[in-house]
């Protein structure tokens, strides 16, 4: 029984860690700007494309990886300055639509550059290697991902709780106007948020695409949506919540893909039901359920509506 479930669990933990790294970007931006940054999944995809092109030009990995992360952070910064900053006083719907516009633009730019074809992600030694755990083969990245995710999250939580910029971030997310009155440079706090979020998405993209090997312009939308669902699930605005949510969603999704097999092996059913059809839909069903039962998510703070 356990040996049947284990491979799915491993896949789930691995994909969950990658969703977590994307979800942090969503949850931080939402915490501060109350904006669903629909373009975040595409930033993640662009990081993958950058890696493809940079390594194709013959740059060694120890340069290309930091370069990709730096460029991704810069893209996040630029997007905020160009597309969100001018709309700061506009209605919230406008800025969300701007995010959709950015997502559309990034996808089309990549479509144009790549010609709409799958690009092979360069294989990174060590994390691409195959290992065997408890009889199940998997890639090293499966083990590296959760560890790296946890290290980065702990570092991030430390940053938020124990540094000046972290304090400013917390203040801004509590009350935008008041923190502005208190002399916090709102714009730089927001920029830092975007830089951190995009950087983590960049790390996530390296892990994700090492595992799944090809990048195309739409690669970012589904992981992006699921990461967002994870952020909502965990309680949007909460970093630990996003991470827990991401792992839950990653694991559930993969277990569902294997549910037919697990049930057959356990002798509960004899014919397949085609549950795999719902592996994406299930994520959203989970979201709707959690929103109805506990609208603020697992770790979300209760918000008071102001008139």
């Amino acid at each position: 029984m356990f040996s049947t479930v284990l491979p799915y669990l491993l896949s789930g933990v691995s994909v969950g860690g990658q969703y977590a790294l994307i979800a942090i970007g969503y949850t931080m931006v939402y915490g501060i700007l109350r904006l669903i940054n629909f373009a975040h999944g595409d930033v993640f995809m662009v990081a993958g494309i950058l890696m493809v092109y940079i390594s194709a030009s013959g740059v060694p990995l120890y340069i290309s990886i930091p370069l990709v992360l730096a460029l991704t952070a810069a893209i996040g910064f630029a997007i905020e300055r160009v597309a969100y900053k001018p709309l700061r006083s506009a209605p919230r719907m406008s800025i969300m639509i701007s995010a959709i516009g950015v997502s559309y633009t990034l996808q089309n730019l990549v479509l144009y550059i790549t010609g709409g074809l799958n690009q092979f992600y360069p294989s990174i030694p060590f994390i691409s290697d195959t290992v065997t755990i408890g009889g199940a083969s998997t890639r090293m990245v499966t083990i590296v991902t959760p560890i790296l995710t946890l290290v980065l999250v702990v570092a991030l939580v430390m940053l938020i709780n124990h540094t000046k910029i972290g304090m400013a971030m917390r203040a801004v997310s509590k009350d935008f106007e008041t923190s502005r009155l208190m002399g916090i440079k709102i714009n730089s706090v927001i920029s830092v948020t975007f830089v951190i979020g995009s950087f983590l998405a960049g790390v996530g993209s390296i892990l994700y695409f090492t595992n799944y090997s090809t990048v195309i312009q739409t690669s970012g939308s589904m992981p992006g949506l699921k990461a967002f669902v994870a952020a909502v699930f965990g309680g949007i605005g909460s970093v630990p919540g996003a991470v827990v949510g991401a792992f839950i969603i990653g694991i559930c999704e993969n277990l569902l893909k294997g549910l037919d097999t697990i049930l057959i092996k356990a002798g509960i059913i004899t014919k397949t039901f085609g549950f795999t059809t719902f592996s994406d839909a299930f994520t959203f069903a989970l979201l709707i359920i959690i929103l109805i039962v506990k609208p603020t998510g697992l770790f979300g703070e209760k918000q008071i509506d102001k008139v």
Partner: protein
Amino acid sequence: MKKILAVVLALALVVSFSAAAMAENIVKIGVFEPASGDSGAGGKQETLGIQYANSVQPTVDIGGQTYTVQLVTADNGSSADKAPSAAQQLVSEGVSVVLGSYGSGVSMAGSPYFADAGIPAIGISCTNPGVTADNTHYFRICFLDPFQGTVLANYAYKTLGVTKAYCLAELGNEYDVGLCHYFVEAFEALGGTVVSSDTFPTGNSDFTSYINTATALGAEVLFAPCSIAYSTQIISQANALNVTFPLLGGDTWDSNKVIEAAKGTNVKIYIDTFYQEGGNPEFDTGFKAWLNANPDMLTNNGGNDMVAAVSAMGYDAYFVALEALKAAGTTDSKAVNTALWNVDYQGVSGEIKFAVPGDAVRSVAYIKTANTTTGAWDFVTVQSVD
């Protein structure tokens, strides 16, 4: 105001197009292929075959006059919702005959537009029976899924000697689901068992769970006739999971992208296809020389000069279209449609002759295997249904 402006612009466009067409003897052939999306890579290779054929034979004699062939391309984006406007674009440009498409779903989505305009279409590698069923304007030069599914099931059961298969198809993809259906039918008729037939959602990139399922259910072969975008990922993930069973693919797998992904892995891959490189050396060398002379084309072919079966098929389709134009003696699309029924053409991929409902008579498929050391396709056998 803007609407009026739109109408004026429309009229201007229509007038200018018709004026251009009258200037010299030009016959337009529509190329209805995906240049983007999941099937983009395959569509581009198929288009290359057509373009090469056009460079070999740029003119055609119709009714005693020499016409220059002009290829009009429209990108159907590998999706059934983009196909209608691409088809309409070809229709509005006044093409006499349409070639394509790679992918059965888009062909079926575009089909009614060609039917309404009375334009015949020649499918190149769309293998789903639905493409030519119930109509008289869609033809195809390749074999069909019931045939292909049976060939693969026969090969798996009789030659590979496996009795348990696992099928994997993309959800919402007419081609994948259809081919799996026929494979299952044939495989079970032979006495094999299909342990499970799963579908994955579009855009999925995590295949490890499906491969794990195949292992857990004791499959001896994994049949996944999906687009290149997914097959490459299945190969690399199957390799990471150290699978012992072979992977079995359909005609879409015959691509240098797939072999690129397979190179250096320990996965056994068997596919069936329409044409084997070396089948017509004259075509192979000509095509390679043409590709190498043209950096853009080489990129479209996936970066090297390997001959894809769909390129050979595209080449043949172009000449079939020319034959029909010659026989019709006019560029009128309805006459070309009628003439197509009587075309008998010896192409690089074999003899092409259409039977009701418009399918070429094909009785064999080529089985190839991926040589993971050299990174090339090795010919295995010619497989027929019996």
